[in-house]
């Protein structure tokens, strides 16, 4: 029986990984099309209908390119670092619940890969390991611009990881659990305010935490306007300057997968995940995540890049105190308003 559950879990994980990789490829297409539309351009439209075959063409092109290793690179580390980034990125999706347990052919198929009771902390831990791909890549390139980009990225990710973690504490206090399934279950209840009956989504009870999470998540995934580590204009690209061919694309693919995972996480933590009007299901989760992905592209098209001191000042002087304030307020509400657990 245990073997059976393990196999089912592996199968769900396999399907999820492949869906994620496919989505990632089309996320690049989506970003280029939306960005082009916002900038009054056309975007990729030649390869296939609406340019839909463009990601495949890109993949073939990158695979066919030469894989160059600089002469003064730390060879083994240089070769492994992008793989580390890429391999860690999809692991976060393993804890996201995609729906209720299915019953097929007498088998119980839970629509999530691993039900860990510290799921959110697990995602944060993955983030803290993911930085290694960047800093080791920058160090191993034997190039000062790469190293500078990597150091920037490290400082940025460490700072914003703090904000990301602290912004979630309010949600933990309200839900009384670190498990995503429990957090989802809490959100499926109804929130009654006078004559209004609203879903108990945490975006309503934790709006400050939601805003903090959103900002920190953009910084954590190194996306505009916090894309300092890959500032083309100052750093000749940043930590991946020396990378070429498919190793170069590994970093980008990892970034896109991270965006998808963070969007799924935000939808699950704050917008009720699979919960929605009419019929609950994975489509609501997909719709909400798609909104966040669009938001990412929207930000990139709209905002200029932060200066480095502004970036660090924002994290430490604005977001961190706000996150602590939110924790204090939520704790008081928990203690006096809804009562202790």
């Amino acid at each position, binding site marked *: 029986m245990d073997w059976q559950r393990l196999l089912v879990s592996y199968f769900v994980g396999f399907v999820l990984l492949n869906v994620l990789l496919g989505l990632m490829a089309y996320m690049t297409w989506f970003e280029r099309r939306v960005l082009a539309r916002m900038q009054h351009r056309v975007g990729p439209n030649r390869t296939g209908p609406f340019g839909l075959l463009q990601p495949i063409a890109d993949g073939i092109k990158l695979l066919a390119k030469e894989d160059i290793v600089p002469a003064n690179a730390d060879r083994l*580390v240089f070769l492994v670092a992008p793989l580390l980034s890429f391999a860690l990125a999809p692991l976060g999706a393993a804890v996201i619940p995609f729906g209720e347990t299915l019953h097929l052919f007498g088998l119980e198929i839970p629509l999530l890969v691993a039900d*860990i*009771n510290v799921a959110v902390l697990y995602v944060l*831990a993955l983030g*803290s390991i993911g930085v*290694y791909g960047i*800093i080791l890549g920058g160090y191993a390139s034997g190039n000062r611009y790469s*190293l500078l980009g990597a150091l920037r990225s490290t400082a940025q990710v*460490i700072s914003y990881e703090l904000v990301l973690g602290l912004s979630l504490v309010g949600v933990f206090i309200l839900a009384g659990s670190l498990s995503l399934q429990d957090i989802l279950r809490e959100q499926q209840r109804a929130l009654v305010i006078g004559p209004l009956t609203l879903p108990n989504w945490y975006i309503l009870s934790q709006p400050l935490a939601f805003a903090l999470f959103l900002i920190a998540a953009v910084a954590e995934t190194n996306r505009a306007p916090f894309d300092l580590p890959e500032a083309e204009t100052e750093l000749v690209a940043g930590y991946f300057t020396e990378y070429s061919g498919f190793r170069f694309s590994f970093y980008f693919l990892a970034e896109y997968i991270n965006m998808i995972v963070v969007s799924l996480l935000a939808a699950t933590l704050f917008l009720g995940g699979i919960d929605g009007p009419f019929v609950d299901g994975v489509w609501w989760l997909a719709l909400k995540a798609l909104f966040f992905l669009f938001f990412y592209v929207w930000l990139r098209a709209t905002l200029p890049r932060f200066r480095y001191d502004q970036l660090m000042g924002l994290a430490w002087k604005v977001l961190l105190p706000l996150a602590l304030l939110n924790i204090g307020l939520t704790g008081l509400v928990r203690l006096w308003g809804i009562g202790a657990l």
Partner: protein
Amino acid sequence: MSLQVLIFSLLACVSILGALGVVIARNPVHSAIGLVLSFLNVAAIYLIARAEFLAVVQVIVYAGAVIVLVVFVTMLVHPDDLPEFHGRRPLRVATGLVLGVALLLEVAAAILTRSLYGAPGPWTDQTIAAVGGNTRALGQTLYSDYMLAIQLTALLLLAATIGAIVLARPEAVSERVAAARRTLTISLAHPRGLDQPELPPALPLPPDGQVKPAGGGRPIVLARSASEFTEQPAWGEWRTP
């Protein structure tokens, strides 16, 4: 059960290999990578023991903190200095060996005499399930029985944070720089008049000025004010007066 033992042995072996790598690797960044590898495998061993919270915290706190080590190494250790990092200093090697063997003996003694085992605590599988899981049981214990320890730790960390802020305060730094300016100006530029013959030779080297070689043979010139220097940088074309 046997599968668990197999996985445990694998993780333990990789963990020990990583720890060996920390000691053996000649490049400090490789040492740091070995350390992370070792920590991650220990976290996986916690997972096998169903201590999920401990495993995740191990990754966040320990494996995440090694990144700072990597940053320090890349910032502070020049690649040319790397062979010196390990050096052939017999006294140090001997001290390390003695301390390592002593630690190993201590751990072995503790395990063999079973002094690590106390009386069984109140938590059994049933009580943990009744509370609602490992993590919740841990949290309740920490925040009731060990409240004082938690608060003391928090106080200690707060003190460390305040200390760091005070040290890094911009006023403190700028005051020190201003104080240094009042006495001496340190510059890597030429003293005025050495390579500009058209200027009046009114300013020779300051009476108490020194020209001394610093790292890489680059001279450091001390003078009383910045106006005694030209704008021209000194590297590459220094001439002694």
